């Protein structure tokens, strides 16, 4: 239970060692570099340009990997995200770093290939469109730009609807005679229908050269139009040429795809490339915070106290740097790193989602951990579910040892919660709800059930409610105790008495007094009776507490009237204690929800009766129902345990607001570089 003590470390190094020292620091990942105001003779580098270059390189690697995934995706297991990053030794790192330029070329080639591929695809599309528009002209055996011979003129075009050759000739004659006079013989034309469809008729019309203008004019009034496609070739030849080009493009695409696939073996290099540039980017980000002199440079930062000696020794021995170490004070506002034993550490992730301990606050993790496991177990409270959680989390933890630490902590937390769930399940006699007795009755016609070690909440909900609230009082008093501890640690004895002890007296006295009231006992179904003296004593305690709060809670005000008013307002806060305690009734409600829903599913399963078919259906309903129930109640238990911790428990003493310790490190996606020793 502790916030790790931080040292403020200042490193002075010579410029020629800058790169090496920074790299060593990054791989060691113990220092969180802070930004200090620049002094005279020192300046800071502007690395924005370099960083954007690295960003570009990293995103190129990422893009190449994504392309590679499309063609030959890597086989990934269901739990591959749990496997964690691959380990690399420093030596391997340097050999790989030397190959970075080569990998960059691979990435570029992949991206280029993908680009050419999409260009080719666009070309294919374009040619296919042209083929479609040329198809109606397929039977034309002259080029589409054919104008005619010396004596004749050719008119190639289309009519907007289906027309036959006779029809066109008849219409032509009619229109010719209307325009040019009835007595005139129509100019001779030759019409050849090339293709027809519902929407259009493609025609080839031949006439004498000198008649061309007149003929075209008449045809136009009939709806004749020049085609939208033009090609200097015979349409069929043109189509064939397009088809050949398309085939070629398709082949080229295949080659490109083969090419990309052949880079599959380079995947690891690309992963490394991505990590490499992410790392360099981070390094340059830190470089910006480094104060640079003519010959030396200065880095300041926070290092956990345990590691600062070792770091100092290494830096001065290997790189000849001078290192200054002093314990960080609260004014420095050091980042927060938590260190807890194996039992409590998993809950750190929950604390993190709330807030890290602020300046001068203690780390509440270890106290919180005990309550967390107990409350979670009570909400789920089924021995079988708990056992499944333990087995599931245990197997995953055992199988994937190299998991990211956050994931590992969360799974370990659920493992412990599972143990607690199983424990409470045994206490309350719940094994997949009432599955045991249902199975015994339906299939073996026997009355058999595993008795509860303590009691069955479904049968005695009042008892469970009282227990939940009692636990709530313990939890809230635990929160107050944390506050007391903090006050004593800061030697703030007045606060310790008036802000904590008085509340203990008031709430504790009130609760004990309530227990002496017969009506309450009857309502709660409790059978004991306390002697009247206890009631009086409790009332006196509560009175002292209330008086202390009224008189001293507003002690920061000088004005006595204002002070009393403030005190009365503080006393009003007793209602929040009441609602806090009532809030623990969710332990009962969620516990019942798990048990009763499980019963519902067991009952549904048993409705099909005994026998083979009944058994099969029972198993089916059982599997689906309990998976659903477990999932929904796990979520509920997780969310509401968090709530009880954050609101009821933390509300009493914890503010948070600390900055999480994020050392200058190798924050990579695929590889993890291990420093020797």
């Amino acid at each position, binding site marked *: 239970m502790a916030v790790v003590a931080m040292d403020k470390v200042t490193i002075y190094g010579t410029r020629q060692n800058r790169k090496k020292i920074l790299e060593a620091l990054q791989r060691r990942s113990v220092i969180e570099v802070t930004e200090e105001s620049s002094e005279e003779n020192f300046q800071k580098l502007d690395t924005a340009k370099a960083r954007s270059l690295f960003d570009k390189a990293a995103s190129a690697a990422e893009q190449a990997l994504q392309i590679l995934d499309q063609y030959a995706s890597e086989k990934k297991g269901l739990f591959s995200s749990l496997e964690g990053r691959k380990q690399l030794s420093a030596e391997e790192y340097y050999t790989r770093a030397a190959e970075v330029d080569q990998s960059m070329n691979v990435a570029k080639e992949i991206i280029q290939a993908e680009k050419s591929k999409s260009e080719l695809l666009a070309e294919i599309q374009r040619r296919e469109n042209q083929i479609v528009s040329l198809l109606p002209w397929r039977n034309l055996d002259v080029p589409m730009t054919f104008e005619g011979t010396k004596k004749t003129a050719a008119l190639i075009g289309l009519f907007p609807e289906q027309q036959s050759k006779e029809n066109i000739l008849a219409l032509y004659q009619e229109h010719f005679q209307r325009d040019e006079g009835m007595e005139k013989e129509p100019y001779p034309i030759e019409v050849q229908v090339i293709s027809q469809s519902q929407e259009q008729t493609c025609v080839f019309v031949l006439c004498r050269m000198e008649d061309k203008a007149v003929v075209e004019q008449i045809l136009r009034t009939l709806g004749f139009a020049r085609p939208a496609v033009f090609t200097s070739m015979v349409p069929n030849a043109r189509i064939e040429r397009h088809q050949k080009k398309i085939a070629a493009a398709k082949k080229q695409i295949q080659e490109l795809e083969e090419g990309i696939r052949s880079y599959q073996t380079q995947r690891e290099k690309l992963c490394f490339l991505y990590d490499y540039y992410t790392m360099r980017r981070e390094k340059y980000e830190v470089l910006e915070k480094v104060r640079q002199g003519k010959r030396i440079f200065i880095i300041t930062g926070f290092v956990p106290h345990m590691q600062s000696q070792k770091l100092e020794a290494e830096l001065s021995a290997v790189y000849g740097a001078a290192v200054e170490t002093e314990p960080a004070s609260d004014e420095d506002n050091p980042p927060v790193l938590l260190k807890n034993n194996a039992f409590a550490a998993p809950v750190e992730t929950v604390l993190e989602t709330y807030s890290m301990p602020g300046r001068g606050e203690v780390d509440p993790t270890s106290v919180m951990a005990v309550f967390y496991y107990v409350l979670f177990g009570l909400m789920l409270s089924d021995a079988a579910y708990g056992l499944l959680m333990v087995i599931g989390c245990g197997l995953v933890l055992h199988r994937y040892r190299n998991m990211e630490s956050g994931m590992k902590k969360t799974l370990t937390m659920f493992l412990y919660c599972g143990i607690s769930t199983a424990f409470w399940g045994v206490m309350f006699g719940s094994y997949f709800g009432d599955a045991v007795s249902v199975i015994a009755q339906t299939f073996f016609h026997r009355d058999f059930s595993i008795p509860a070690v303590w009691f069955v909440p479904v049968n005695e909900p009042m008892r469970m*409610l009282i227990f939940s609230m009692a636990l709530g009082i313990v939890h809230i008093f635990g929160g107050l105790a944390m506050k007391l501890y903090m006050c004593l640690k800061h030697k703030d004895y007045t606060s310790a008495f008036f802000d904590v002890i008085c509340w203990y007296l008031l709430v504790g006295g009130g609760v004990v007094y309530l227990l002496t009231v017969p009506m309450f006992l009857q309502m709660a179904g409790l059978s004991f009776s306390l002697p009247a003296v206890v009631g009086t004593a409790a009332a006196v305690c509560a009175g002292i507490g209330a008086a202390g709060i009224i008189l001293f809670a507003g002690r920061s005000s000088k004005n006595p009237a204002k002070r009393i008013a403030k005190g009365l307002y503080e006393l009003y806060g007793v209602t929040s204690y009441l609602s806090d305690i009532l809030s623990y*009734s969710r332990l009962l*409600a969620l516990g019942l929800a798990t048990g009763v829903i499980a019963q519902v599913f067991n009952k549904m399963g048993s409705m099909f009766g005994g026998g083979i078919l009944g058994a099969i259906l029972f198993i089916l309903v059982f599997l689906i129902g309990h998976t659903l129930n477990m999932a929904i109640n796990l*979520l509920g238990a997780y969310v509401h345990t*968090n*709530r009880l911790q954050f609101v009821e428990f933390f509300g009493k003493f914890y503010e948070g607001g600390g900055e999480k310790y994020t050392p200058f490190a190798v924050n990579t996606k695929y590889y993890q570089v291990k420093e020797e020793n």
Partner: protein
Amino acid sequence: MENLGIVFALIGAALAALMAGIGSAIGVGIAGEAAAGVVTEDPQKFGKVLILQLLPGTQGIYGLLIAFIVLSQIGILGTPVEISTAKGLLYLAACLPMAFVGLWSAIRQARAAIAGINLVAKRPDQMGKSMIFAAMVETYAILALLVSILSVVGIQGLNL
């Protein structure tokens, strides 16, 4: 007319399942729309927004729970029992907290969940807090569930 007891009791059970179920269906539905929007931008957030989407789903389950306890107590599931009119009305009254609070709180919780989904879309590290906001609303559904359960269990022992 003396058989009306079981009718009232069944109306109560149906209301609990019905209204809480409707609330959850609406809630999970609108939260799902918001969640799908986030996933279009970043498919990796699927797991996180799914949890937030599911939060307003519990009311429907609480409703089912109450309905089930009532059904088994009034003998529609299991051995038939005689239910007097007064007892039937009591069951109906006992179901009302879960029915109404279930309907309203699920919809309101869904709105808090949607806000949480938007929060996670911008700041995925704030998942814990966004869950708590929605869970705050659920408190009242749990309180209603508690009152309904205690009443339903209590009614059985009454001699009416």
